[in-house]
């Protein structure tokens, strides 16, 4: 017993089990922290997955622009060296790459999506892509016919299959297969994984690189998207065109001894007599817009995988040859919409302060019982469905609505000149003030009910007038309530969608209505995401301010 006492005095304090008390306490604290985190973790993960991840996804979408390089991968690479300011059209190689990309995109029906996307930047591209997608398989028709006339083997599915596999036991080129898998997966956003019963041969893909590439893409698409068998389907025109290009480029078919070698030699001799395929002329024949430098410029400007284009668009600017520039006057709407959203939110906030302050003052100065009774009048609108309140305002404000009818009945307004109170800014402001008023009254009330009445009484007894006592003593103490309520109302107002949509008409709509329009009607998701990101940034700054001023855990409901 005396030993322990001595160690305790000289050494560190020990807990019951002999460990130093400090460590034991630290361990207990850590255990407590871990327990708290373990309780929070499920919800935190839930919110992160169901809520924060979608928001992050939206932010990503506002800069993402992979559709151009996914749909036209070779064109984008070939176009890199083109100088848009030279005033000349891109080189024939670019048109050849475009043929290769366009053919596959048209087979996968992805060219219209890209057309729609680029149409946001340059009007007319959508129809250009659409018409080209229809006619792209006619390009090089004469050459393909000549090839097929030479030897019927070029129309035979089984011959093509053996040719491209390189025969039994040939060394496979899995790298090419995987490369084409990725290309198709990027293009269609579907998975192209799975066994397709075809691997290009190593030797043949070195001999005929373009053909092997095109045939592998064809094989993957046939098996996975169309669910057919490769060996039983005749290859696309694009494969045959690629073969002609390979042969024309001087592939050394004479030195090849795999299956189909003889047909290849014969084909090369025949092809040598034909003129080269003029892709540029062919595209211009499909649609003369392929000769417009503007269109090529757009494709080049929007070819990087990430773009600031959506954000520029969201602030009424666009990408020009020399960096960002303002859009033409008649296309500028977003700055105006943001200003209107801001202005109307401020007006709504102001009218909520004007109407909420007297009510909060009255409630906090009445006897508790009466105040609770009157509080029901504030809480009932708060608890009533938003749609109910909005439809109520529609009923009230319409031209044939309750207010107009009452005014006409009283003879204040002539029946022929009923007031227009809906489908404009007035309607939105009135309805939203009504809807958000409880959010102003409740924080004000909770602050005002903590102000001791003795201060005002003291001021009065020291000789202050009613007004001075209120303005110099009471009002400063109620400012935190005004601040809390204002930020809350402003945050809620700035992102409102339903009420402006129903009572706002065209002049009373907010930026959120435009976002909804871009998601569901114009399908310009990138622009919707960019507008949303700007709005979100504004709200988060206010949220941060609210947290600093009021503290987010001090929010009270009801």
């Amino acid at each position: 017993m005396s030993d322990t006492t001595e160690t305790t005095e000289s050494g560190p304090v020990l807990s019951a089990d002999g460990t130093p008390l400090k460590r034991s306490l630290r361990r207990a604290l850590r255990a407590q922290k871990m327990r708290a985190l373990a309780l929070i973790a499920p919800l935190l993960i839930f919110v992160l997955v169901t809520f924060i991840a979608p928001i992050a996804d939206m932010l990503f979408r506002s800069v993402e622009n992979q559709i151009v390089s996914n749909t036209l991968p070779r064109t984008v690479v070939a176009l890199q060296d083109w100088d848009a300011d030279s005033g000349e059209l891109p080189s024939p190689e670019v048109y050849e790459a475009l043929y290769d990309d366009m053919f596959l995109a048209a087979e996968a029906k992805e060219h219209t999506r890209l057309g729609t996307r680029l149409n946001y930047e340059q009007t007319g591209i959508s129809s250009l892509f659409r018409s080209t997608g229809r006619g792209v398989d006619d390009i090089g028709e004469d050459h393909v016919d000549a090839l097929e006339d030479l030897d019927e083997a070029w129309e035979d599915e089984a011959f093509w299959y053996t040719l491209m596999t390189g025969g039994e036991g040939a060394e496979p080129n899995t790298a090419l297969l995987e490369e084409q898998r990725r290309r198709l997966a990027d293009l269609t956003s579907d998975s192209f994984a799975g066994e397709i019963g075809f691997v290009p041969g190593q030797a043949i893909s070195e001999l005929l690189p373009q053909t092997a590439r095109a045939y592998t893409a064809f094989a993957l698409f046939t098996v996975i998207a169309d669910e057919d068998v490769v060996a039983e389907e005749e290859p696309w025109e694009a494969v045959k065109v690629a073969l002609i290009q390979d042969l024309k480029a001087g592939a050394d078919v004479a030195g090849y001894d795999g299956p189909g070698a003889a047909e290849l030699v014969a084909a090369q001799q025949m092809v040598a007599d034909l003129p080269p395929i003029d892709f540029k002329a062919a595209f211009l024949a499909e649609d003369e817009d392929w000769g417009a430098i503007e269109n090529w410029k757009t494709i080049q400007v929007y070819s990087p995988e990430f773009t600031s284009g959506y954000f520029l668009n969201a602030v009424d600017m666009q990408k020009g040859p020399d960096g960002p520039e303002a859009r033409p006057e008649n296309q500028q709407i977003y700055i105006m919409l943001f200003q209107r959203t801001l202005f109307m939110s401020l007006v709504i906030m102001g009218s909520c302060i004007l109407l909420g302050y007297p009510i909060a003052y009255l409630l906090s100065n009445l006897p508790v019982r009466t105040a609770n009774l009157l509080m029901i009048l504030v809480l009932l609108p708060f608890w009533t469905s938003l749609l109910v309140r909005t439809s109520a305002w529609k009923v009230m404000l319409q031209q044939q609505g309750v207010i107009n009818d009452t005014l006409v009945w009283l003879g204040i307004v002539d029946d022929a000149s009923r007031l227009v109170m809906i489908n404009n800014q007035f309607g939105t402001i009135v309805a939203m003030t009504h809807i958000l008023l409880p959010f102003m009254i409740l924080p004000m009330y909770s602050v005002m009910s903590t102000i001791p009445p003795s201060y005002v009484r003291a001021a009065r007894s020291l000789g202050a007038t009613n007004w001075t006592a209120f303005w110099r003593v009471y009002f400063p103490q109620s400012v935190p309530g005004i601040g809390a309520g204002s930020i809350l109302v402003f945050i809620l107002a700035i992102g409102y969608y339903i009420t402006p949509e129903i009572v706002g008409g065209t002049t009373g709509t907010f930026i959120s209505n435009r976002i909804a329009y871009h998601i569901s009607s114009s399908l310009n998701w990138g622009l919707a995401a960019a507008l949303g990101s700007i709005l979100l940034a504004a709200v988060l700054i206010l949220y941060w301010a609210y947290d600093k001023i009021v503290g987010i855990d001090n929010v009270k409901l009801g």
Partner: protein
Amino acid sequence: MIQPKPVSFVAPVVGAAGAFAGLLVGTAQGVPLLGVVAGAALTAALAFLWLEVFRKERIARWITFLGFGVAGFAIGGLMGGVIGLAFGWLFGWFIFWLGEGRYRAKLPPYTTPLQVFYHFLFRVICGLIFFFLITPIVVVMPLSFNAEDFFTFTPEMLRLDPAGYSLKHYRDFFTNDDWQQAMWNSISIAPVATLLSVSFGTLAAIGLSSEHVPFRRPIMAILISPMIVPLIISAAGMYFFYSRLGLQGTYWGVVLAHAALGIPFVIITVTATLVGFDRSLTRAAANMGANPVTTFFRVQMPLILPGVISGGLFAFITSFDEVVVVLFVGSAGQKTLPWQMFTGLREQISPTILAVATILVTISILLLTTVELLRRRSERLRGMSPG
């Protein structure tokens, strides 16, 4: 200071109020000027009569009440009679309230007449604001019984003619497949979403309210954010993200989205309840040998239950009332009641919406009462004075 006031003060004031009432009645009859003069003269004369000649309050007020009612009935039929009775009661009360000086009863004796005037002016302004708050909701109710397909009062309704009223919009709501489907969707989505947010939210709120929580503020900010981020942004993000996961247009997609939106309300109400929670109670239970699970269900849960339930009600109403997110995340198969109302308001205007609105207001009144009772019970349990 409650003392009778001279009739020279009461009669002009009552006359002014009477002029205003006369203006209303007069304009409705097409003779505004006559209405003003007649109203002022009549009410001022009444004030003089009751205060100077026949000062028997009870009988005088009855006579005013019934007399105005009969006069109203003679001018404007049944509705006129009702309005007349209201005016009669009002003026009978007003004359004696002023004449006996009762209006000063609750004011300090030293207040000057001007201060008294401001005091009542303030009250009147507050009354108008309350009127603004409550009228839209009240107006919807009688309109939902409209026999016509109008969004406004018909002459029959104003005459209180039974033919002007009908239950047909309610019948439409209960027999129309669209509305019924929407109602069942709402009923099947909201409770599941509520259950999710309440169970996760309560656990997290208990974790958050313990003394040592690392990163408390950022965690709180993340958990509250679904309430702060504008719904259209949440909806857009969820639409994009849930499409990638294949949840877009499915029942579970909507439930998860609604659960996320309801969580802040559960967190806020439950942490507020836990602020007053006495931790020595759980320690005492543990001391007596109860394991943490028993302690939670037998000691802590009953005490914080009111907060949990009102948080759950908030979460329920959030899901039940939500339209923006379901509009984007859901497909036609998840069409909820608010969604149906929204399309109804935007496209085909049908007064069935008003019937639905009335039903929803009734439900909100019930919920509001429940929450209020729970709040009082919670404060009683925690030893606070019932507010």
